[in-house]
């Protein structure tokens, strides 16, 4: 990703035909899309579209769609942390809000059955609204206060859902939410998703493609550049005329909306929602994904998400088995009394912590860094302390 400023394109004459106008309307993101070296991405997209036909194992597709949900969460948090440089430690709260919005409005709980497709979009707005409610007063504060406010919010939301058992089913949550379906219109017979992972896979794939196009476009827009300016130097950004509070609020709300979106999707797929699914570890997992991959870089974020997803859903699950079989095959007497399986099973917190600390100390820009972010982080570290370090860097 180069950060060279593109010369502004000469204004094109207004097209008279409706199709031409439509093309002009979308020309911004289309140009962005074209400018990227698109061939490998298009090949990748085609492979992903064909994936359920190549691999008919439903278990694999289920894994793929779940990984897609994590990528969506990571892309949203990347807007907040990676672009705007705001540490949001309560990201799971918005995920919970999206989940419960769907579970309460599309289940037997209140006997409301709003269609999935409407709620998918609506819950994104609901989550964004909560983002604004939380962010509007707190984004004026310094960055590290925001971290603790979001952490507090992340603790409050699941507790509220757990305690308001009258509306949310309490500890047991809400079971048996509506499953999405395609309506039968214009002769199309209609289609029920049920427990088949394939349609979910296509939903999440579509959402991801649209999201990525949107984010790429956002990053290069006036707003995206404003985010990065604030991240680098808030005082300087404000003095160039950026309204820092509004700009930060937009990042916060947009990140929240991705989380709400993912929440609705997750609940519909899982068929139920419980307050236990939204603990602090979820927020931290998403944070690790973007920190590992490279804050501010979309490819990095996706790769980071996939690595961490692989780690938690495969390596950590298999590790106890591997270690016990290794233990048995090596057959060292002093190892026989050690329960390596349990040891591996319990190491998730430690592994997460080590990844976070090691990345920040050794490679703060992440595995696949955004060029801009890399310069900031490296310069920041090498710079000798001359000026006031307590500035809003």
């Amino acid at each position, binding site marked *: 990703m180069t950060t060279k400023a593109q010369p502004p394109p000469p204004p094109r004459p207004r097209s008279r035909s409706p199709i031409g106008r439509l093309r002009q309307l979308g020309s911004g993101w289309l140009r962005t899309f074209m400018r990227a070296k698109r061939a490998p991405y298009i090949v990748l997209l085609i492979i992903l579209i064909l994936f359920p036909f190549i691999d008919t194992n439903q278990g694999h597709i289920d894994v793929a769609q779940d990984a897609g949900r994590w990528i969506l969460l990571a892309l949203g948090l990347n807007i907040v942390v990676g672009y705007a*440089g705001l540490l949001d430690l309560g990201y799971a709260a918005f995920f919970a809000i999206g989940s419960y919005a769907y579970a309460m409005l599309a289940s037997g709980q209140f006997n409301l059955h709003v269609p999935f497709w409407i709620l998918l979009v609506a819950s994104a707005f609901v989550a964004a609204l909560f983002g604004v409610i939380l962010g509007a007063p707190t984004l004026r504060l310094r960055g590290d206060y925001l971290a603790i406010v979001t952490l507090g*919010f992340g603790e409050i939301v699941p507790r509220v859902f757990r305690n308001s058992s009258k509306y949310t089913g309490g500890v047991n949550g809400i079971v048996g939410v509506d499953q999405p379906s395609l309506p039968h219109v214009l002769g199309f017979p209609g289609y029920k998703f049920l427990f088949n992972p394939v349609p979910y896979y296509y939903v999440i794939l579509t959402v991801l493609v649209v999201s990525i196009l949107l984010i790429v476009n956002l990053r290069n827009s006036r707003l995206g550049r404003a985010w990065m300016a604030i991240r680098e130097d808030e005082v300087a950004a404000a003095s160039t005329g950026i309204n820092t509070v509004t700009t930060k609020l937009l990042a916060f709300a947009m990140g929240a909306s991705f989380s709400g979106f993912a929440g609705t999707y997750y609940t519909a797929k899982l068929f139920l929602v419980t307050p236990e699914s939204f603990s602090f570890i979820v927020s931290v997992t998403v944070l690790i994904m973007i920190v590992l991959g490279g804050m501010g870089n979309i490819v990095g974020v996706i790769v980071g998400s996939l690595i961490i997803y692989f780690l938690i859903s495969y390596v950590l699950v298999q590790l106890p088995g591997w270690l016990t079989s290794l233990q048995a095959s090596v057959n060292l007497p002093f190892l026989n009394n050690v329960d390596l399986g349990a040891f591996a099973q319990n190491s998730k917190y430690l592994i997460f912590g080590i990844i976070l600390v090691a990345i920040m100390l050794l490679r703060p820009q992440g595995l696949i860094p955004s060029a801009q972010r890399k310069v900031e982080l490296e310069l920041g570290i090498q710079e000798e302390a001359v000026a006031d370090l307590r500035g809003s860097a």
Partner: protein
Amino acid sequence: MRFFVDTLSLGLTQGAVFALIALGYTLVYGIIELINFAHGDVFTIGAFIGLNLIALFGMQTWSPALLIPGLILLFAITMALNGLLGVLIERVAYRPLRNAPRLAPLITAVGMSFVLEGVLFLIKGPNQIAYPNLFPGGSISLGFASVGETNLIIIVLTAILMIGLQQFIQRTNVGRAMRATAQDRDAARLMGININRIIAITFFIGSALAAAGGIIYGFYNESISFDLGFRSGLIAFTAAVFGGIGNVVGASLGGFIIGLILAFADSYTTWGLQWADVVVFSILILVLVFRPTGLLGMRVPEK
């Protein structure tokens, strides 16, 4: 009346623990403006160090005459060890990032918190672990009510530690250097203060106080678990913010007030048990929004 006094002493006792943790947050924040997310887990480790020392020395079977010097020794050793842990964490995780963008040490602090919790989880497992109470368990009758001896000792002990800290910061040369560093690090350096040493001392004191809080928590609640520090840490941070972050007296006051709020919500309301945490965390957000300097804070956030 009896019920009121019980609640009051419960509130002050758990408030003492929160205050001891909050002091660590406030000291570190005052001096390097970092929210040390790992501090809650440093508190848990302090509690576990104390537990292991008690088992090591077999202190449960000591005679009462021997127990008083024994307890002083227990607190001293645990606080020293935990203080060294705090210094180590600062040296390994925070010092290399002191000049990095703000986000970096914050994320590292979250990571450190997980490392400490992970280590405890590996060693101690997920269950609650019993903790002996070596303080006398009787109670003193006041006529209209009675106060537990444990509670009384805890409150007095905490007060002694707090006054000691306050005197240390106000009266000694190191304390003066700490205040100078908090005010303006570069000017302090130009005056010949060894900044790294002062920051290390600050972490040592904060972690040592957390260790004292950890032992007290163990004695009072008689069980601890690996993830104790997350909730306690967040509540204690609320206390620090409530009192005015960066302000030592404020953190102590904030700790006691939060402890009392929790105790009275628990005892006097039907919703208290379920909603107390929500109330505390809401206080955190509301204080930050409406009065970010806290009750006594003088330090005005830059933005």
